[in-house]
């Protein structure tokens, strides 16, 4: 304990919530390697499954005032709130999920408000809060509101959490509050509704719609968290990889067969898949897969000064590399046919020669 107190004098003490889940645990580990950080305390209800490295794990429930004692005792100056759960399945039901998300955030913020040591709060939010509908602008900036207020589920939780965070920022103006609205995090190790959807052997899509998707690579998520902890940058920022990938394009790159079906049928199938624990198909995910969403990342570049290493395309390619294709027959047939024909570069030269001859 003495060493911890000594560490706090010349480095930062970071508290990370939600370390039992993979992304939280790995982000905490990554933060612990940062030289400006003296100590990282990971907090969750259940212990993390993997290796936590230099992170000291404290078993505490953020829905409980005990969290205030942890913050006070460890003299925490930076709180990274990552315990926002997107799926009811992992939490054990929608009721628990909502309680963990909303009540947990309220308690955590209440504890932060009472703790004079806290100087910096970083909340990992999500672009899901913008919703997805046919009336959306192509690119959401941070100042825009969702076109339809979410009435249930994850999107509503996130909207409420951000509301509480704004309230906290008003009451504690001395604390720098950074809200990172991250696009769908993707990568070989990520388990999320989106990645389990892409891992289905045959992928249902909404007939007649093609969603625009943006991805954030898991490595970039950790980098942006470290960046936000290290630098003094309050504000709300959209965080996403460059560019846009269409859903149809992504599925073609995965080389997995798709089944287009009407929206209501995809919703019904989603319920079946959820019960079978194959994928989590929430209504907001269905609307996301129908209309898609794009967020503007100008502010991330200019004010946050963060540049993701992976574009949306590259992040998805990295994810797709780890999956075995279950389709791709047409592509193989085309490749075989193309091998028998002269290559295209050669053929361009030929056609230009031919054109010249004809003219002459």
């Amino acid at each position: 304990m003495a060493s911890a107190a000594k560490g706090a004098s010349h480095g930062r003490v970071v508290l990370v919530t939600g370390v039992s889940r993979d992304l939280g645990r790995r982000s905490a580990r990554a933060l612990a390697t940062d030289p400006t950080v003296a100590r990282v305390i990971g907090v969750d209800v259940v212990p993390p499954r993997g290796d936590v490295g230099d992170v000291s794990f404290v078993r505490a429930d953020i829905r409980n005032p005990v969290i205030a004692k942890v913050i006070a005792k460890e003299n925490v100056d930076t709180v990274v709130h990552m315990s926002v759960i997107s799926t009811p399945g992992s939490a054990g039901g929608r009721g628990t999920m909502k309680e963990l998300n909303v009540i947990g955030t309220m308690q955590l913020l209440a504890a932060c408000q009472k703790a004079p040591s806290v100087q910096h709060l970083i909340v990992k939010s999500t672009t899901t809060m913008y919703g997805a509908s046919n009336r959306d602008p192509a690119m959401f900036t941070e100042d825009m509101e969702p076109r339809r207020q979410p009435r249930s589920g994850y999107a509503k939780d996130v909207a409420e959490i951000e509301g509480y965070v704004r309230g906290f920022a008003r009451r504690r103006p001395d604390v720098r509050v950074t809200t990172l609205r991250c696009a769908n995090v993707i990568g070989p190790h990520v388990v999320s509704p989106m990645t389990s959807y892409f891992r289905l052997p045959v992928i249902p899509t909404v007939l007649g719609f093609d969603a625009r998707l943006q991805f954030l690579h898991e490595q970039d998520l950790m980098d942006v968290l470290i960046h936000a902890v290290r630098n003094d940058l309050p504000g709300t920022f959209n965080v996403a990889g460059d560019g846009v990938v269409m859903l149809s394009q992504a599925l073609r790159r995965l080389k997995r067969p798709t089944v287009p079906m009407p929206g209501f049928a995809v919703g019904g199938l989603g319920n079946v898949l959820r019960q079978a624990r194959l994928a989590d198909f929430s209504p907001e995910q269905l609307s996301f897969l129908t209309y898609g969403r794009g967020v503007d990342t100008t502010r991330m570049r200019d004010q946050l000064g963060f540049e993701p290493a992976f574009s949306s395309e590259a992040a998805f390619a990295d994810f797709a590399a780890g999956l075995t294709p279950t389709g791709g027959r047409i592509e193989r047939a085309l490749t075989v046919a193309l091998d028998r024909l002269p290559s295209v570069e050669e053929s361009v030269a030929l056609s230009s020669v031919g054109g010249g001859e004809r003219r002459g």
Partner: protein
Amino acid sequence: MSAVGDAEIIPIGTRGRPGRGQHTGKPSSASRSLASGPRKATPRRVPQPEREPEPAPEIEAGEPVGAVAEEPAVGPDQVSEGAGAATYVEERLPQGGIPAGEWLAAFQQSARELFGDQWEPQLARFLAFLRRRVTGDYVVDEYGFDQEITEKFFMTALRPIAQKWFRIEVRGIENIPAEGGALVVSNHSGTVPVDGLMTMVSIHDHTGRFLRPLGADLVFKMPVVSTMARKGGTTLACSEDAERMLRGGELVGVWPEGFKGIGKPYSERYKLQRFGRGGFVSAALRTQVPIIPLSVVGAEEIYPLVANLPSLARVLGLPYIPITPLFPWLGPLGLVPLPSKWLLEFGEPIRTDEFDAVSAEDPMLVFNVTDEVRETIQSTLYSLLMQRQSVFR
């Protein structure tokens, strides 16, 4: 696949129906108790004769390769083509088919017909394009605009309609700047937004630039239409998207009349409707881009809207359900547009850079500029109508 003989089995008796063959009324309880089991179990009890026709198509559809392995002398072409005909007569022996050499010759002949003498590289290029599409190896911009498919597919499909069917004549194309943002404002008519598509093709063919249309939210609610709209470069008609596109230096097209213009009855043809709330003018003022008025003559006559079904439209959530002299009476044939003669005239650009960006907040100025654009288009419409000899010439 089955080991049992080639002879076709003709079932004798009642084909598993219970009873003695009167086929009237219900069978007796005794016969039902006898028959209920076998009815479901028919394939199990007499498996070989009943299943006999089934396995044969399975072979040809599912695994042509397997068939080839059994019969090495046969090429893959023949199996897929020949086996289908020979299913019942002679099992998996397509010996009477066309020899492989003739198939190849026919294929080469048709390829030459389709692609000309340079058919090999042409076909290679086409297949490479197909492979790019199949593997998703292309880029879209942030609005979902897919330049490759727009250029190679949409435009190619629409060009003959523009040139041969509507015989579009374009005037004042020099008013479109070669680069930088500009806002093309057009009248809207024709029951179905064909005028937007034709404007896109005409601008691309004459200037090489892509017109990026702004579409109503209904466009993005409809399946298939929404996908095609996004791929073709459309985005939602809202100030955020319009300003973003104009700042990005795109050539943006807007039809401020909206559904009021496109769904107006034929009797009100060439009468401009209200130009929305002038949101397009504010967007142009904020981004300081020129407004190019466009007058389209000809689109009004393609589907003359003589009646409307407002109550049905309300139920379906559509702005209107059109009744034209041909639709829905002729069914799909009624969807063929009348071949009216089209004239497109781009007017002098209306400059907005002499106003400062704050003036976008001045409603009086916005209304004035809106009226100016509207008057320009209306007067050009009248003069173009005078020049046209008739609807079709």
